[in-house]
Every structure is written in C-alpha cells, then in structure tokens.
C-alpha cells in the first residue's frame, strides 16, 4: 500500500512511530524491565504486569522447574486477535506481550504484558483483560517438575 503525506514531518512521524502491538514468544529468558524500557513511549498512562514462576507447585510442594509448551502460530494469532479486540474495546493505544516457553526455574519471568493509553482506566483495564485472555484463551500448557517427575498443571491459578 502506498501512503501519501501532506507534510514532511508526518513522514518522519510515520517512519519512527512504534508498532501498536507486539506479541512475542521467547524460548530464552528476557529482562522485563529492559523490554519495557525499549518499548515504552511518552504515553500519558501505562500499565504493566510481570508474572514469575512460583517456588511452589500446585500441591504446595517445592517446585524444581516449570516447563511451558505452546501451539506455535495459533498461539500468537489468538493473542493478537484478543489484544486488537481489547485495545479497541477499552480505548487503549498500544500493547506489548512477551511470553516464555521452555524450561523455567522458580522466579524466572513467564509473562510480560504492558498497555499504553491516554488515561489510567483504559490502560489498567486493558492490561488486566489481556492478561486474563492470555491465561484462558491462548494455547500454552504448563508442566510442573518435582523430584524429577513431571505433571501437567490442571488449570489456572485464581485471580
């Protein structure tokens, strides 16, 4: 598609404007604060969530590691669909989603969700709704490892 701009400054803005939606699945650890810093703009309001691996398994025993798998392609597609719908519905402007797969140790970051908007309400509501959508509607699966044995997590933790 060819874009037409009436003023040279608009050309510069269009070329330098950050994308409205980034969805990434990572097989290696990332630093959420570095990612947030790189992604953030000067928006009036921003909200973010960082999720880490708990040290305890579902049954309360000590957790060795958490293994995360996903359905590549469908997973990214569903997150994008949810994010685009929620940005529109909540009146927010930009979203960043980064999610880990692979073997994670306790305290490692699993998920980073960030949203920018003009006001705190849309930013916070959209961030929370997007996180819940990822937890319930994106094809990720967790396996807990304890004492060398793995077992699939049966459901999401309560809100």
């Amino acid at each position: 598609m060819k874009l037409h701009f009436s003023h040279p400054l608009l050309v510069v803005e269009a070329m330098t404007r950050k994308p409205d939606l980034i969805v990434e699945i990572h097989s290696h650890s990332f630093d959420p604060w570095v990612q947030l810093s790189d992604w953030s703009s000067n928006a009036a309001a921003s909200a973010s969530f960082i999720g880490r691996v708990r040290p305890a398994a579902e049954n309360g025993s000590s957790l060795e590691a958490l293994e995360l798998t996903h359905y590549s392609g469908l997973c990214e597609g569903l997150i994008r669909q949810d994010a685009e719908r929620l940005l529109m519905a909540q009146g927010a402007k930009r979203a960043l989603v980064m999610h880990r797969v692979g073997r994670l140790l306790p305290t490692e970051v699993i998920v980073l969700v960030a949203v920018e908007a003009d006001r705190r309400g849309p930013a916070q509501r959209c961030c929370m709704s997007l996180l819940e959508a990822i937890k319930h509607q994106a094809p990720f699966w967790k396996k807990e490892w304890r004492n060398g044995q793995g077992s699939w997590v049966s459901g999401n933790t309560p809100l």
Partner: protein
Amino acid sequence: MTKSSDRTLQVLLFASLRDQAGWDEQCIFIPDKDVVTAEDIWHQLKLGPRPLSVQIAINQQLVSPLTPVQIGDEVAFLPPFTGG
C-alpha cells in the same frame, strides 16, 4: 479420482494428550465417506471419549467438533490452556 493413499491429514496432540497417546504428530487416513468431521478424526485416534474441555483447531483456527475436515488439513486437539 483421489487414491486412498492420498486421503490423509496431519494430527497434532499437545500436553497431556501427547503423554496419553505416546506421540505428538501423526499422518492419519481420512475415512472414505462423504463428510468427515474433526470429531470423527478424534474417534479414529482411539483415545476414548473426547473430554469437553479438549478444543479442536483445523489449520490453526479453533473450530467446533462437527466441522468437516479436508485432505491435507492440520487438525490439532488441545487440552485446557494454562498459560500466563
């Protein structure tokens, strides 16, 4: 005319279903009848009744169990999601 050896699709299993079946990806023959649904493919896998919580995707789109499958489709069976 389609040869019977060409009437195949790819089935993907994830998470607990992989452990139950002992495989993650298989080429499956489509039964020779007019309309074959995703549910028909599940029954062909001999994994018992499909739990209602197991969702189905065809070619990376979530679909209902009664959606017809086509030759060459990628059919995935998905246990409840636990991400985030």
